[in-house]
């Protein structure tokens, strides 16, 4: 599967501080790519650089296989829809007039306005001034603007920010339907792990400007598989004993963390420990939650 976005060593420096550092993003075509990270981690800056709204200090960006530069930027962006940070709108105009402005500038057919209004379920509010819209409606209007040209790639930065649970659910369903309905690739950023968990097929985790994880969500879930925590009267001797048996271990407080194994194997280990006069005092089954993994990767408490 080809990558629709590829960045190489993408960096952005403000003063002496790197807001984004050496980010190698790869977004496969047809994916819903979840770009996850705590607030201020550099998500918006990265997405803005991909859209050409911020100039990278270092690094390369390729969209649709073409290296992006100032000359071909807008040509490339014809196939990209975006909603960055908060929806862009003219409050004194109606929803339909707002879309007409972006439709005209994009040079796409007028009928697209009616279609995208239907997709985001705003057709009944199209003649209302946007200043009278709720935040959820404004977000949906922002999504409608992004969808106007039926782009191949949709970049949505925190699209559920500020929405109530019902609004979040609605937005999530909308986003999830896009790749199947229109063959779009979607990049969606969020600081909410639960949201990305329910949406994305591939995930990139950014921490203090650095990409600390990038792979499928399934693989991330594998990190959360069960393991065993054992405590003995002599953990030091147990460590060498486990190593001799070829069992991987990791010390954590008073425990030794070992992989999940068959009951027979565990029985054998406990018997052998007993024979060596090492008292086995605890065997616990533990499971790392996705939140724990996020915490390990980002060093910040997860927002749920």
């Amino acid at each position, binding site marked *: 599967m080809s990558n629709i976005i590829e960045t190489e060593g993408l960096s952005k420096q403000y003063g002496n501080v790197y807001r984004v550092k050496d980010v190698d993003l790869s977004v496969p075509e047809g994916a819903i790519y979840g770009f996850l990270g705590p607030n201020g981690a550099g998500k918006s800056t990265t997405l803005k650089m991909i859209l050409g709204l911020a100039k990278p200090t270092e690094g390369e960006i390729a969209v649709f296989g073409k290296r992006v530069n100032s000359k071909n930027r807008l040509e490339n962006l014809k196939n990209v829809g975006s909603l960055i940070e908060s929806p*862009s709108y003219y409050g004194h105009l109606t929803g339909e007039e707002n879309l007409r402005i972006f439709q005209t500038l994009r040079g796409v057919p007028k009928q697209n306005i009616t279609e995208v209004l239907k997709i985001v379920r705003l057709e009944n509010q199209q003649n209302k001034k946007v200043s009278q819209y709720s935040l959820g409606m404004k977000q949906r209007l922002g999504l409608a603007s992004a969808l106007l040209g039926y782009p191949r790639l949709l970049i949505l930065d925190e699209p559920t920010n500020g929405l109530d649970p019902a609004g979040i659910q609605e937005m999530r369903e909308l986003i999830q339907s896009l790749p199947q309905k229109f063959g779009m690739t979607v990049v969606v950023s969020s600081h909410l792990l639960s949201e990305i968990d329910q949406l994305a097929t591939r995930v990139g985790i950014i921490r203090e400007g650095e990409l600390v994880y990038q792979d499928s969500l399934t693989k991330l879930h594998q990190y959360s598989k069960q393991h065993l925590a054992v405590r003995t009267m002599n953990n030091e001797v147990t460590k060498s004993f486990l190593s001799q048996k070829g069992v991987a271990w990791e010390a954590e407080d008073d425990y030794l963390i070992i992989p999940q194994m068959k009951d027979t194997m565990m029985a054998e280990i406990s018997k052998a420990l007993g024979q060596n006069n090492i008292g086995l005092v605890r065997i616990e089954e533990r499971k790392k939650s996705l939140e724990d993994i996020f915490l390990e990767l980002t060093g910040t408490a997860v927002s749920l």
Partner: protein
Amino acid sequence: MSAAIGMEVLKTKGRKIWLVVAVMMAVQLLWAGWAISNKDANELAQGWLFFLYQFPMLNCIIMPVIAAVVASRLSDVEHQGQTFKLLETIIPAQRIFAAKFIWGSIYMLGAALGQLAIMIGMGFVLHFGGPVPWGALAGYLFFTLVVSLTIYIFQQGVSMLVANQMVPMTLGLVGGFIGLFSMFFPQGFQKLILWSYYGVLMQVGMNWDETTRAVDFYWTATDWSGLGLILVFFVLIYGIGRILFVRKEV
């Protein structure tokens, strides 16, 4: 470009920008009526010269206010709705800048034509002496537009770059007052200040006899170096404003 200008027109729907221009024209009309009301027949014989002297002076305040308000009204819709970050993914930033300038210029042209209409209308109604000085009136329109568009592009640049519209509005008002008071200073100093150019490019001079307290107006030669300088200012300000806007990260 025509699509971008057309969308600028749509964005101003309900913004009542023409109302601002109309109010300022009404102020100018009232002032002109008041200023000419106490003139006798002899003084009315110099009515055209009187207006062509007084209107540029009043323009030092009127036109910068119009320029500041128009530029601010055209730009604050973008700041309020955070639309630059979307627009700049659709059309080049320089086109946004140009479209705003062209549409803003229409308001400035409207104001200048409004002033011309006031002068001509009052001239005919009050039967100013001598033939209508069409050439000087055309010159007035041209010079007023050149200066006003230079001030407008300055205001537009600041309004597009700074989200807080109090900054350009204050600059516009302060500039206008400096322009007005600079008329009491030497021409060399006047030519350093954008807002003074209504006076620099004035086509009429005034003699005031201290003993008789009589006022006499006379035609003056065009200050071509002043015109050249303001055109240079226009090109420079447009260029710098555009570069800064294009480079600005949103």
